[in-house]
């Protein structure tokens, strides 16, 4: 309890509150702009927050992450263009309800269920993270290797067209992580006599390139797309009667979202889709789905925001990112000199609770911002792409350059952007690559240490029941497309 109070105390400085609220504002704005996403905004923010106090920097990013998930639903409801992937399912019923003349009600349902889902997952986070961390403190290198392999296998089921391509992307990310001087032996690997590569490839330009620049290239294909907007004067909060009718859907989706968020690599998009499907499955009014059903809005919204909180659990407790955005927060933590994982919670619990506090403020913050600014945010989506994306590119260039004052990093950003664009065209997602890049060091270090401990006998790793469990889970995760098909046929 003392740590919780300390953590909240860290946040109560004026500067920190201001940064959290800025994070919320940027998050909702970015979420509301189709094409821009919270991972992209976090990637752009990292270089500029390096000089900030770590609590302020991470709190701002966590707030942006929470708010970005909600922001995406504004455009999903008003213009049928999800501002962020997790809002895809919200558009299915949000847009029809708005078209039926109730845009304020649709926005209100989305906001309230998002807040509920977010707070629900934070309550779970506050209990689950320390427990998970306590368990992980017992882990040795072999167990960490097993966990990292399991996390990599979970990349297969991340949203995207192909599990196989997700896995390849993830492993390419791990391979990129090997560039530079090998820490154990001091040998240069894949440096091609380029001095800038000796330190390895910096996270920041790769992240900015993959998320922002590749998206710019994609947007350059559809510059003249016309969207129809539905006017929304204000957000209308649901009545108590309405909430009572929807309480089980919201509660169920919050639980689903939190659970999916906690699973390594599973993000808000998967949670939203499952939340929507479950809301439909349990609904007494299935025929209304797709025509503006309130359950079709609260189901995915509670789930995607709950997943945002849930994803922070493995990120902070194990150092294994729960989603693309949390992978970036993890990268930011590493850059601030923290070692994400059980030691973060056992040694600096107040820091973890400060992040919890920031996410709580963010959840209440976007409800307030949504209440007063729904009309404004629906207009934001109409900023001409021809002016918006050059601005994004300029921020990307400055962000990549300013991180290490190196033009080489700007080239890395451009190269990552080009690679990201062509990857996406051929069904390879960028998010697994980023997660692989971030997990890479952990995988190699834990693998090397385990091999040394076990005298280079790989099978000796299986003597640990925890490693065995992770390998079984890895097998189940990789074979899931086959057994889910088998059971669905039955």
């Amino acid at each position, binding site marked *: 309890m003392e740590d919780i109070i300390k953590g909240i105390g860290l946040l109560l400085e004026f500067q920190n509150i201001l940064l959290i609220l800025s994070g919320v504002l940027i998050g909702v704005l970015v979420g509301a702009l189709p094409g821009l996403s919270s991972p992209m905004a976090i990637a752009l923010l990292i270089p*500029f927050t390096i000089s900030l106090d770590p609590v302020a920097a991470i709190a701002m990013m966590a707030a942006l992450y929470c708010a970005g998930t909600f922001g995406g639903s504004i455009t999903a409801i008003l213009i049928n263009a999800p501002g962020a992937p997790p809002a895809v399912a919200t558009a299915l019923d949000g847009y029809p309800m708005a078209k039926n003349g109730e845009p304020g009600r649709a926005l209100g349902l989305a906001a309230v269920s998002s807040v509920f889902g977010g707070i629900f997952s934070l309550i779970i986070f506050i209990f689950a993270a320390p427990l998970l961390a306590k368990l992980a403190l017992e882990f040795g290198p072999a167990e960490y290797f097993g966990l990292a392999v399991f996390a990599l296998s979970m990349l297969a089921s991340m949203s995207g*067209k*192909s599990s*196989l*391509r997700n*896995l*390849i992307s993830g*492993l*390419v990310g*791990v*391979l990129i992580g*090997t560039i530079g001087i*090998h820490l*154990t*032996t001091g*040998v*240069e*690997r*894949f440096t*091609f006599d380029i001095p800038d590569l000796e330190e390895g490839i910096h996270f920041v330009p790769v992240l900015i390139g993959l998320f922002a*620049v590749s998206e*710019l*290239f994609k947007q*350059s*294909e559809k*510059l*003249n797309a016309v969207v129809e907007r539905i006017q929304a004067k204000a957000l209308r909060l649901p009545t108590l009667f309405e909430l009572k009718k929807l309480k089980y859907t919201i509660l169920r989706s919050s639980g689903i979202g939190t659970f999916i968020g906690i699973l390594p690599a599973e993000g808000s998009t998967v949670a939203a889709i499952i939340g929507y499907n479950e809301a439909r499955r349990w609904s007494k009014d299935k025929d209304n789905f797709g025509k503006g059903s309130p359950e079709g809005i609260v189901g995915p919204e509670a789930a995607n925001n709950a997943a945002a909180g849930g994803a922070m659990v493995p990120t902070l407790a194990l150092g294994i990112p729960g989603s693309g955005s949390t992978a970036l927060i993890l990268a930011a933590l590493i850059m601030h000199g923290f070692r994400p994982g059980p030691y973060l919670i056992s040694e600096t619990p107040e820091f973890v609770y400060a992040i919890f506090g920031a996410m709580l403020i963010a959840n209440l913050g976007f409800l307030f911002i949504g209440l007063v600014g729904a009309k404004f945010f629906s207009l934001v989506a109409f900023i*001409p*792409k*021809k*002016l918006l*994306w*050059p*601005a994004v*590119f*300029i*921020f990307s*260039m*400055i962000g990549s*350059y*300013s991180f290490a*004052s190196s*033009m080489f990093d*700007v*080239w890395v950003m*451009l190269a990552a952007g*080009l690679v990201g*664009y062509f990857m*996406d*065209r*051929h*069904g390879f997602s960028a998010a697994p690559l980023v997660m692989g890049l971030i997990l890479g060091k952990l995988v*190699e270090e834990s*693998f*090397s240490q385990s*091999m*040394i401990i076990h005298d*280079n006998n790989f099978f000796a790793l299986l003597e640990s029941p925890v490693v065995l469990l992770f390998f079984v889970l890895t097998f189940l995760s990789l074979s899931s*497309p086959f057994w889910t*098909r088998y059971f669905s046929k039955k």
Partner: protein
Amino acid sequence: MINNKNAPKGLGALLNKNDTIIAILLTLIIAFLWFETTKFEKVPDLFSNNIPPEMFPQILLIIILGMVLIIPFEHLFLKKSGKDIDSSRKKPVEISTIGTMVILSTIIASSQILGAALTIIAVSISLPIYWGERRVKVLISYIIGFPLFVIVLFNIILGVHFEPGLLELIKN
């Protein structure tokens, strides 16, 4: 039943053309990287604890290669689950996208000569005009206003170092 004469037969029907090209390209890259790992400096076992620096990258390359070899056939499994891997690449890359790539690469290549401020102005001018923005008032206010905002925010307020480039020559 429709008899599609153009439909590929035999092995051609099993392989996806685009994915086969990708698999060949990736295999070549993997072969090149493998060759690179053989050139890593050799370290005595005592220093490397029997884990030589090339071991981990080589394991990764083998696993990636194994997966890459499945790619040309993957469309068969994806079809069963109703996914079309070719949907996003049916159309060739748009000219506007290639043009954007060329413009941005050229600007970055010349940024060390131009300096930060002129590079920002170059992006603000070239991209909107190339993308078809023709409203003169909007363009002028954007070209002046946005770079000014960026320079004030990052260079003056946040203290990011901006290379002066050509501007220094003009000043001198």
